[in-house]
């Protein structure tokens, strides 16, 4: 009990300074430096409304008056803090996230800093320039080439529904909202409730008034009273998660409000024979294994099926064996997270399914699996097929004579496909990408980069900031007409 009283208490929420949270639930986690008590707020609809009004007030009085340039500078300063290994919040995140999410310390340490780098000022500017012809449109009316003037307004308040346990992904959404000057009401997921809170607190260290427009709160997904209240407060809703979550939220959001939904997606990889020459194959295997090991495939950017072309220095089957050996090495470097019984069972059952098939001689599949537990699984198929995976470092490898010839396997899944890691000769790149695009894929990337989307990417094939803002146009007629009412006009 003494240990408990002395333990560090961390609030797993961030609310405007005026708001008092009196009631908490607590969860104790053990870290290498002793116990830490995580405090979660007990929320009611009324409290949520009170919080919503405060952040709206801060948005109206302060955030909406800042220039985009100023907001970018504040975010950049926050990111600079996070890029310092000695920054206390970074150290806290590096200590708590492995315990909260189960991911290996080393993996979190490396990926967190890599991720933060994608929000440096230059990247934010690139992101803004990618979508707006004139970024200053977010600050004032800007003349249009076709005549007249336009200005863009972001939603006054965005309700972000975060999901999953990949640390930091929430920041993307939060930053996007800030760039269009929206207050944020973020609902964190129980599996990663930390990063959005810590980053908001960093923003508060730099610009306390700006951070007054941010509220990050955890509550149990599907709590109807809170969800309804949050949607009512918001002008736009961004929801991440399973298709069930998205489908549950959709009907609750009135037509008059914007809804951006990022549901379940599947990614895969394609390896051309030219990437399997004796000088290249190991590098490809290594980078692919990293794509699979990173966050145990929990990110929708991670590959589940890999199509390998025949005719290289190693056969697709050898590729599968080598990938298995590399995943074994990754398990030493970045041990896979502990699984729930259900997750482990899903892996066992897919292993058994294909082992049985192979025994019965129905199909030529071979299962390569970690000997001790479910740490990794590579299932080789001699025929091309697209298979989903139970994740947690489980992949299917299938062989083909020619990558271009297997597009049919993608046909059943156009609305689910997302990233394709592609390793081919430059002459095939555009043609293959065009084929992939026509089948629903929205991102082609290098092997080894699958989990790191570039700033300004078309998330799930759409626009980002432009989907959030609304424009007001002053038509040239109004512009000219106004001149007539100048008493000094000739």
């Amino acid at each position, binding site marked *: 009990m003494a240990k408990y009283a002395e333990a560090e208490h961390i609030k797993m929420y961030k609310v405007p300074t005026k708001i008092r949270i009196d009631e908490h639930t607590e969860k104790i986690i053990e870290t290498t430096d002793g116990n830490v008590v995580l405090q979660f707020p007990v929320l009611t609809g009324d409290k949520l409304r009170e919080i919503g009004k405060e952040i709206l007030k801060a948005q109206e009085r302060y955030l909406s008056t800042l220039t985009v340039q100023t907001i970018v500078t504040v975010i950049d300063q926050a990111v600079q803090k996070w890029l310092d290994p000695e920054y206390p919040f970074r150290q806290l995140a590096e200590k708590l996230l492995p315990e909260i999410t189960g991911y290996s310390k*080393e993996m979190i340490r*490396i990926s967190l800093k890599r991720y933060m780098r994608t929000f440096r000022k230059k990247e934010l500017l690139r992101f803004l320039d990618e979508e707006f012809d004139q970024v200053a449109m977010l600050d004032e009316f800007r003349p249009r080439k076709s005549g007249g003037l336009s200005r863009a307004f972001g939603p006054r308040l965005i309700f972000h529904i975060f999901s999953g346990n990949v640390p930091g992904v929430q920041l993307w959404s939060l930053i996007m909202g800030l760039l269009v000057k929206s207050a944020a009401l973020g609902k964190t997921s129980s599996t990663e409730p930390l990063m959005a809170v810590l980053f908001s607190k960093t923003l508060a260290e730099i610009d306390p008034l700006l951070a007054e427009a941010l509220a990050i709160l955890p509550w149990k997904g599907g709590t109807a009273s809170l969800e309804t209240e949050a949607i009512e407060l918001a002008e736009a809703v961004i929801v991440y998660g399973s298709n069930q979550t998205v489908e549950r939220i959709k009907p609750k959001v009135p037509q008059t409000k914007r809804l951006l939904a990022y549901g379940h997606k599947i990614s895969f990889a394609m390896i051309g024979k030219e990437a399997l020459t004796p000088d290249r194959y*190991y*590098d490809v295997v*290594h980078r692919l294994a990293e794509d699979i090991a990173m966050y145990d495939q929990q990110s929708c950017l991670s590959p589940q099926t890999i199509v390998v072309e025949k005719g290289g220095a190693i056969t697709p089957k050898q590729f599968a064996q080598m990938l298995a*050996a*590399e995943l074994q*090495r990754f398990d*030493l*470097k970045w041990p896979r997270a502990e699984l729930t019984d259900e997750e482990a069972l899903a892996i066992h059952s897919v292993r058994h399914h294909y082992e049985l098939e192979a025994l019965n001689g129905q199909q030529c599949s071979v299962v390569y699996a970690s000997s001790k537990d479910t740490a990794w699984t590579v299932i080789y198929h001699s025929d091309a097929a697209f298979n989903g995976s139970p994740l947690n470092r489980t992949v299917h490898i299938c062989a083909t004579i020619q990558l271009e010839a297997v597009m049919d396997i993608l046909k059943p899944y156009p609305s689910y496909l997302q990233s394709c890691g592609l390793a081919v000769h430059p002459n095939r790149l555009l043609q293959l990408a065009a084929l992939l695009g026509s089948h629903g894929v929205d991102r082609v990337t290098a092997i080894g980069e699958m989990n790191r989307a570039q700033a300004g990417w078309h998330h799930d094939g759409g626009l980002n900031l432009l989907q959030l803002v609304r424009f007001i146009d002053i038509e040239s007629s109004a512009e000219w007409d106004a001149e007539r009412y100048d008493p000094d006009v000739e």
Partner: protein
Amino acid sequence: MDFKDKVVLVTGSSRGIGAALAKAFAQRGACVIINYLKNETLAEKVVEDISEGGGQAVAMQADVTDEESVKKMMADIIEAFGVIDIVVNNALSHYSFNPKTRKTAWTIKWEDYQQQFSGSVQGAFNVCQEAMVYMKAQMSGRMLNMVTNLIDFPVVPYHDYTTAKTALLGFTRNLAKDLGSYGITVNAVAPGLTYPTDSSKETKEDVRKMILTMTPLNRLATPEDIIGPVLFLASDLAAFVTGQCLRVDGGLVMV
């Protein structure tokens, strides 16, 4: 490999490779002395881990670079256990393997070398001098010195550290010649970059990747990888092996 009732001293064993070695000896029946310089809490934690696993261990503070300090530790060991069967010279002067901030050939000072000589060679010298008194009387003993594969292939030239370790290998071979007649073997183990440890945490991903692309086994060593070769050389299986250096680096150096 059985080390039942053997008394083993591992210097610098509150953390990293030393701690892994101490635990491995204890698991196989040895009574292990966890020597540390400053980190009492970590040393006690290693003792606790060993005790929880049913092994025997005791933490002893001593600065291996200080003759008196080592004399006292060895006397304490003999008083408590009556013998010393195996010593593993694993301690080194604090060193951070940071390729970005390492000293170049034109900035390094003689004092830097001296500090490393003192940690690596003088530390081993003090421990071996004291241990050999008892080992000679027992007509048996195993001495192991931890060196590095950088001796053969300075992939990052850590001048002071690697030069001192090279000297330690010379020390090892000479000692082997003189102590052979007493039935004492003296060998060295040369790990490659071992990750993660406190010393190697500053070796960033890019250099680690560069090393592992040249390594046949395609990964870096972990502290646990060093255990097998050390236990082998400390065991009866290696009774006729002395003055050798066993590289444990996934095949990076082949000589």
